[in-house]
């Protein structure tokens, strides 16, 4: 029987929400087409996540449980995925478009001679493949793309689909990774910085993002305070990740992360298209900028023209009042 297979990414001991979004959508497509919905979990503790995954309708779950996967490394992940895709032979294999996925998607397609479409905002099944929509030209326009073949791989931007529970009891199948430490040519020396103690921007309900207008520790403190009040994740424009003021993991935009929170507050960000490419799908956008002609106001639902150092203190105070 034909199937749609979803790769389930795990981060910080949790299933990534973006993977479950993809699984929810795959389940809907599979049901409509009479396909089965299957999932694969590759992690040292893969079996811990079976319960979470079957809640979203996977009827078969493949587990590759091996200490090899305690850190992200492309080579073992690629081997394991190639083995699974080879044996399961799904019509479509779907991924959330994380950095982990981006690291291996092309290689997996080459290995499996699969047609591949990356970073889509939607996809549907068609005869012999999929039809997908993907933002191009720094997300100024949408391309309608078709991918056909015996095997098709697709990665989906986070926030493209809603979670949709449809509990099933899955058949669980353990699979050997098919590689061992000795096979690996690349060596992981160290993990340098980690923002794992902060809120995952791909999953954050609200994001406060700082740009070059935030000039000093006082500005940074205001950003942190605002984020604290809203329980928001903190993001930054390239100007501030480049200057070292914020961690590179926090960059939002074409080079950085693509996010789609309920609320995005851009503070001292001009709104260059490469930044907007990463946040224009946010539900509500607030911009604070002293330049009334800043392009960020073109995408903002609420624009505040003013000096952030004067705007943020009363803004924070008012939000605190509302919160209590």
């Amino acid at each position, binding site marked *: 029987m034909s199937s749609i297979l979803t790769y389930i990414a795990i981060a910080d001991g949790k299933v990534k929400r973006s993977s479950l979004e993809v699984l929810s959508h795959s389940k809907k497509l599979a049901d409509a087409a009479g396909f089965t919905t299957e999932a694969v979990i590759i992690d040292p503790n893969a079996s811990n996540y079976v319960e979470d995954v079957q809640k979203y309708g996977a009827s078969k779950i493949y587990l590759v449980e091996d200490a090899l996967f305690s850190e*992200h490394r492309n080579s073992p992940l690629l081997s394991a995925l190639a083995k699974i895709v080879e044996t399961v032979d799904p019509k479509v294999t779907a991924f959330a478009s994380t950095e982990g996925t981006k*690291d291996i998607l092309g290689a997996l397609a080459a290995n499996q001679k699969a047609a591949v479409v990356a970073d889509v905002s939607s996809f549907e099944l068609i005869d012999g493949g999929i039809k997908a929509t993907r933002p191009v030209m720094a997300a100024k326009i949408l391309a*309608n793309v078709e*991918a056909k073949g015996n095997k098709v791989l697709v990665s989906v931007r986070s926030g493209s689909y809603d979670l949709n529970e449809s509990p099933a009891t899955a058949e669980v199948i353990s699979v050997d990774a098919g590689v061992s430490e000795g096979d690996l040519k690349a060596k992981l020396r160290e993990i340098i910085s980690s923002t794992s103690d902060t809120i995952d921007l791909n999953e954050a309900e609200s994001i406060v993002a700082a740009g070059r207008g935030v000039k000093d520790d006082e500005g940074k403190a205001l950003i942190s305070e605002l984020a604290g009040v809203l329980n928001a994740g903190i993001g930054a424009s390239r100007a501030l990740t480049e200057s070292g003021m914020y961690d590179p993991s926090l960059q939002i935009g074409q080079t950085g992360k693509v996010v789609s929170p309920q609320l995005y507050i851009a503070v001292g960000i001009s709104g260059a298209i490469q930044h907007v490419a990463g946040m224009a799908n946010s539900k509500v*956008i*607030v911009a604070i900028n002293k330049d009334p002609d800043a392009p960020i106001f073109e995408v903002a639902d609420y624009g*505040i023209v003013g000096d952030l150092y*004067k705007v*943020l203190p009363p803004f924070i105070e008012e939000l605190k009042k509302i919160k209590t």
Partner: protein
Amino acid sequence: MKFYVCIKMVPDVTAPLQIKEGELIMDADRVVLNAYDASAVEEALVLTEKHGGEVEVVCIGPAKASETIRKALAMGADKGTHIQTTGDEGYDSTSYATILSAFFKDKEYDVLSLGKQSQDTDSGLTGSMVAEKLDLPYATNAVGLEVEDSKLIVKRQGDTGQEMIELPTPCAVTCSNDMNDPRIPNLKGIMASKRKPIDSIDISSLGLSDEELSPATKTLSYAPKPARKAGQKFEGEADEIARKVAQLLDTEANVI
């Protein structure tokens, strides 16, 4: 070390564009060297200036792409190869990876360097495809490179932290523009680039079948991104407008 950098000519995403009956219409003269590839060239130059070696660039594209190669030569690359296309073949990342791999098959090099993605399509696939096809260890989304003996040390940006990876050569790497600020060619570089060799080769010389080259994906049409509904802009006294918007986020937008 010997670097080969794969560079692509891409339309300038900041140029005006139009969509007519599903077709994308842009000024064909507004093209640039893909920003991520410019960073890959820059880093290869920095590393070879420091450790010795040479930098060659390869570009698959129509006649005009020779200007893109010239740009990389003006930055300081030693030599270019132009793999000619008409530009109308509808090639996707898979086709480009197939062509690049066929080209590199009998070449000697230490590092194949690519951009982490094309600025116009954001696909981000070609690099790891080429690595897989040539069976090279690789790293993607590099934000820093170092050479240590015969190894390439890559700092890559992951989902949360950064990872430091040691790759034996030959290897492949894809570069982020967060790696460096590519140099702007100076007059001397531009003059020198005119004397540097560009090999022009035809795809047919690579021995690939039509089937191998035919793209598995096809862009059917383009559509404008749905516009966001017009927002409200508040000007005036900071204290007042700040409080006003905070209240609207609660009562009107319901996001607090």
